[in-house]
């Protein structure tokens, strides 16, 4: 399609405007992290100021950033691997051996995501308390794995359906058992799809702020709890909170930036054929 030059300029301006509006909160947060507390709450807010690293020093003194970061990494990666371990065989079965129940199962799985987590907070908390899973990385990994499982299953299901069935049948005639089919054919052929699914699951786990705050205290707390600990009811805290948030968000922002092509492909895959 050929747009008139004025149309293209208008679209560019619109695109940039939307991008700037969406990016602005993050930009402001990073900026605030380098201000003093007084500057942070000053009105009108200033764009030009003398940056200071005091906030970052305070944050590192008050809490051990690396411990929280490690927990985030552990739980995000662990839950993603857990979800993949269950979802790959499940999606394989549903994509290549569907029964009349398959569609219902898939829809039901998705429906569990519609439930507000707070509705099951008390039962899960009690379960975790009684099984000793409270404030453990394993417990959080388990919860995140289960939360993300419907999305991972759905995405893998759509990617697996793209693999032609007779390639797997040819493998079966060649002597492949289901495990061989998955290992030698399905996974290599849908690797981009699996990668984008995994990336999405990692990001969702990293950002998850409900269960991480309610099920962890000190040992297993990820970066979401780290940020929350800086919002105090008394005193000035915006600058330190911004610094802490920047530290918490930076890893996943960089990670997402590096893998953006994969992410976009994975998310738009089903939409454009």
């Amino acid at each position, binding site marked *: 399609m050929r747009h008139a030059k004025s149309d293209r300029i208008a679209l560019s301006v619109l695109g940039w405007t939307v991008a700037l509006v969406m990016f602005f909160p993050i930009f402001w947060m990073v900026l605030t992290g380098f201000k003093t507390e007084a500057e942070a709450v000053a009105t009108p807010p200033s764009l030009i100021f003398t940056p200071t690293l005091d906030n970052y020093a305070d944050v590192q003194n008050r809490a051990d950033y690396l411990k929280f970061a490690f927990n985030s990494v552990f739980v995000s990666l662990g839950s993603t691997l857990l979800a993949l371990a269950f979802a790959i065989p499940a999606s394989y079965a549903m994509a290549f051996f569907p029964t009349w129940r398959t569609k219902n199962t898939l829809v039901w799985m998705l429906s569990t995501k519609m439930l507000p987590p707070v509705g099951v907070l008390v039962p899960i908390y009690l379960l975790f308390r009684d099984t000793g899973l409270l404030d453990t990385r394993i417990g959080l990994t388990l919860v995140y794995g289960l939360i993300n499982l419907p999305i991972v299953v759905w995405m893998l299901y759509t990617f697996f359906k793209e693999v032609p069935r007779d390639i797997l049948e040819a493998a079966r*005639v060649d002597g492949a058992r289901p495990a*061989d089919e998955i290992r030698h*054919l399905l996974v*290599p052929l849908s690797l981009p799809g699996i990668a984008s699914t995994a990336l999405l699951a990692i990001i969702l786990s990293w950002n998850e702020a409900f269960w991480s705050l309610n099920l962890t205290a000190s040992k297993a707390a990820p970066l979401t709890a780290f940020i929350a600990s800086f919002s105090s009811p008394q005193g000035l805290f915006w600058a330190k909170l911004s610094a802490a948030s920047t530290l918490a968000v930076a890893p996943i922002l960089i990670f997402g930036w590096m893998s953006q092509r994969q992410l976009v492909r994975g998310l738009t895959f089903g939409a454009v054929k």
Partner: protein
Amino acid sequence: MATVVLKQVRKSFGELEIIKGVDLEVRDHEFVVFVGPSGCGKSTLLRLIAGLEDITSGELSIDGRVVNDVPPAQRGIAMVFQSYALYPHMTVAENMAFGLKLAREDRATIRQKVAEAARILQLEPLLERKPKELSGGQRQRVAIGRAIVRKPKVFLFDEPLSNLDAALRVQMRIEIARLHHELDATMIYVTHDQVEAMTLADKIVVLNAGRVEQVGSPLELYHHPQNLFVAGFIGSPKMNFLATRVTAVEAGRAHVALPGGGSVAVPVRAEGLAADAAVTLGVRPEHLVAGPADGTVPARVFVVERLGGGTYVYARTEGEAMIVVEVDGDSPVQVGDRIDIGVPAEACHLFDADGNALPRNRRHPLAQPDRTHASTAP
């Protein structure tokens, strides 16, 4: 020995019965073709033999061993799919070696077997390429190579030439025939193209709606079809069918009325046929002649197809039935001409009201009940 025997094999998908009790025997070294219209169950039957679908009831034996519950890889079969089904992320050599790798054969054996298959199919220069770098014909040969490497007892082909253009199809047909001679293997081949069936097969199995209509050599099916379906399916253009009545019955002869007032005496065993019975007369376009013969049908030409080597003339009889005649390539026939179509009695087929053929008196010399295949194996 590589024989395949089916006994009352049935296959249902839920309530729907696709294969309705098939009995069949494939002999060692035989090239058997399953042919039939779309939806007749020929691919399903092949997949049952391969083990990609479960048999609902009945017995399937390969080499004397009942294999109903044996997985595909242990049945001694290899399959070539219509879409080739090559592994896209592996090279040609890896594609062919995959089955051997799964069977944990050692590298030297694998390399030797792949090299031999590559030699037979002239794939040596292509071994390091990926499937997407190959043409359709080359991909088909890789698919066949993958099958050869397994040294199966029975080769199964599922419409392997359907995805190729016409010229390539003819070329690959010759390749497959050559392969059959070189490997001397039992081959079961599925196609909807009756030309492929006629040219490749030792034995053709005509299927219709899950049932076997007739089994026989190509020429036996051509000269002695047992019912209307087989008669209309084999031969291109289709056999002409004229609905008509018996006018008189003799021993060894049935006189039937022709459109336009004539009649012809068809040499069939006519005992049991009532005078004035409703029958269908069948004559192939290539057996009709331009000009009077034993029986004559006046008709008016409405389409002329000139192929150069021959001409197909489509005409309408006085009863508005369509009749097709093959005449000489240089024939001066034009659309709108009134012609006399000659019906030689010897070329006629007669079918009763149920569609079954009445046995012809004389068996065609080339139409032996089963073409004996001389095996070159020791």
